């Protein structure tokens, strides 16, 4: 896949959070400990692609999404957006970047300002970027988010709306500037089941109509299967496998990916039941094991796995794995 196609190129992205230790510990050892939430992640997102980033809690997927938008500052690495390194942008250029890169949050109850009307909330990006024709743009945005008639929503407040409607408002606000790229952080996990598919449907349609790329962050592989084109699996701050979604689900290569897929239950009572292939839980990201992060739980761990971190390599066409088992 040629880099020219890539809207976003992430190169060796790192985010380490310093751990605040007590006075005693600081006096004794003096060594700063870090939570290595994102520890050297590299991937590309193409124009108009829905790229999924999946993993269990603590794997660093949400942090990665926020660091890409520089809502959290990266510790290291490059973020190339249309060829330019976002980490080096100055204030005015950052503002332009923010016009083109947006975010949709997980919690529809917390992502809307309770004191603002829907109109003011959706209009705010226009005001920040000095764009006129506010009423029309807001109405268009709400309509595109399937809140019709839009005027009915202008003067309402978030607490008057349902979770699904609020999420649509959030989508309207993120779309109003016609961004190129949207980070969607578990956008439907807090919504009722029967609402989820319509919101996901909306997101896909917006992608089709407006050629937007998404970074779809989720722990739910089932919804990922429904919306993503390609997907990357993260474990403890590292990307362990990346492939086209169908390829990943049908032919997973990394032991962790295999375990994840086997663990997901299927809404078909006659299908194979979910299986817990590995035991234990994701360890604390403060004490990351040496070598391959997954080796303590891996049934096939070899000596080298305990010592050296495997690289993410392309082993099949468009299919990358970070594992010594795979040739």
């Amino acid at each position, binding site marked *: 896949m040629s880099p020219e196609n890539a809207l976003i190129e992430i190169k060796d992205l790192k985010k380490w959070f310093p751990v605040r230790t007590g006075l005693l510990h600081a006096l004794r050892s003096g060594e700063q400990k870090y939570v290595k939430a994102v520890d050297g992640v590299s991937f590309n997102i193409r124009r108009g692609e829905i790229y999924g980033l999946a993993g269990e809690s603590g794997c660093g997927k949400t942090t990665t999404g926020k660091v890409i*938008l520089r*809502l959290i500052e990266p510790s290291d690495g490059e973020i190339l957006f249309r060829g330019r390194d976002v980490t080096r942008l100055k204030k005015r250029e*950052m*503002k*332009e*970047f*923010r*016009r083109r890169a*947006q*975010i949709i*949050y*997980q*919690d529809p*109850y*917390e*992502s*809307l*300002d*309770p*004191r603002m*009307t829907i*109109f003011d909330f959706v209009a*705010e*990006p226009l005001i*920040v*970027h000095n764009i006129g024709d506010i*009423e029309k743009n807001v109405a268009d945005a709400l309509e595109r988010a399937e809140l019709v008639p839009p005027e009915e929503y*202008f*003067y309402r*407040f*978030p*607490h008057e709306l349902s979770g699904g409607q609020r999420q649509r408002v*959030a989508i309207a*606000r993120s779309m109003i*500037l016609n961004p190129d790229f949207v980070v969607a952080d578990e956008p439907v996990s807090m919504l009722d089941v029967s609402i989820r598919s319509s919101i996901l449907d909306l997101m896909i349609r917006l992608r089709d109509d407006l050629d937007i790329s998404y970074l779809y962050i989720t722990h739910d592989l089932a919804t990922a299967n429904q919306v993503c084109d390609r997907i990357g699996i993260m474990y403890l701050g590292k990307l362990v496998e990346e492939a086209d979604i169908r390829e990943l689900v049908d032919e997973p290569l990394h032991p962790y990916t295999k375990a994840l897929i086997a663990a997901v239950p299927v809404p078909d009572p006659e299908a194979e039941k979910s299986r817990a292939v590995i035991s234990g839980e994701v360890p604390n990201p403060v004490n990351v094991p040496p070598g391959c992060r997954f080796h303590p739980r891996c049934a096939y761990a070899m000596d080298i796995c305990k010592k050296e971190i495997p690289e993410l390599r392309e082993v099949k066409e468009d299919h990358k794995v970070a594992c010594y088992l795979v040739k």
Partner: protein
Amino acid sequence: MIKITETKLSFYKKRIKSFVGRFLESRLGLIGVFILVFFIFISVFANYLSSYPISATKGNPRDRLLPPNRKYLLGTDEMGRDLATQIMYGGRISLAVGFLAAIISGVIGTAVGLAAGYFRGRVEDLFMRITDIILVIPGLPLMIVLAAILGTSFWNIILVISVIGWTGTARVVRAQVLSLKERPFIESVKAIGASDFRILLYHLLPNVFPLIVAQMVLRIGNAILTEASLSFLGLGDPTIISWGMILHWAFSVGALSANYWWYIIPPGICITLVALGFTFVGYALDQIVNPRMRMR
């Protein structure tokens, strides 16, 4: 756009109604309001209510130090001036100092709290250390020293009280900002490209505002007590009458030992009641305003 203002107005009307409703439920708040209305009324209309003109010199020396009687409702001072008049006019100064000091310290405290909570890092460290230093040094002695250095005048007293008094507000505001910053709707304002200034002014400030108001009301009571203390100790402006100054003069003529009780007790009660009034109202406001305002 007209329609928007209309429904915004009705929203705020509803909020005010519910706020007033909740306030009325607080007995302390009601008592406080009653006390304050009474004293504010007396102070504002002092010139209509008092039967004597307020004057620094005019007094009837033959009527000096008389206990309350039909001619002088609260007795007279050592120059034969009516004390009731002095107390009524004195209220103006005491209340004025209280309000002004509270507003100034409120503004300083809010600015510091917002900056510390939002910018964190070295800015926060600097501000918080200053706050801690001021908090650690005993307040009254520090104010005495400052007042002695700066000189005694109406504005200097206000300055002294403000400069020491902003720390409580700063801490409370900073805590609130820290918690607000975590909420996605604040982060999303940054995500759309808004400047720090916009976030602070249009999003954080409105959300901490109720808290600040509650804090400031409490501060007023505090400021009045402080002014009274400073004036009593002789650090107040001798050319103006405040309740604290009245007590100062009372003591200087030995009112306590000579048992001129009408010279001491009324100003004392006024100070106490007004401070109490503000404390009650501030407490009631704090109860309403405390982050339980999340409308789901």
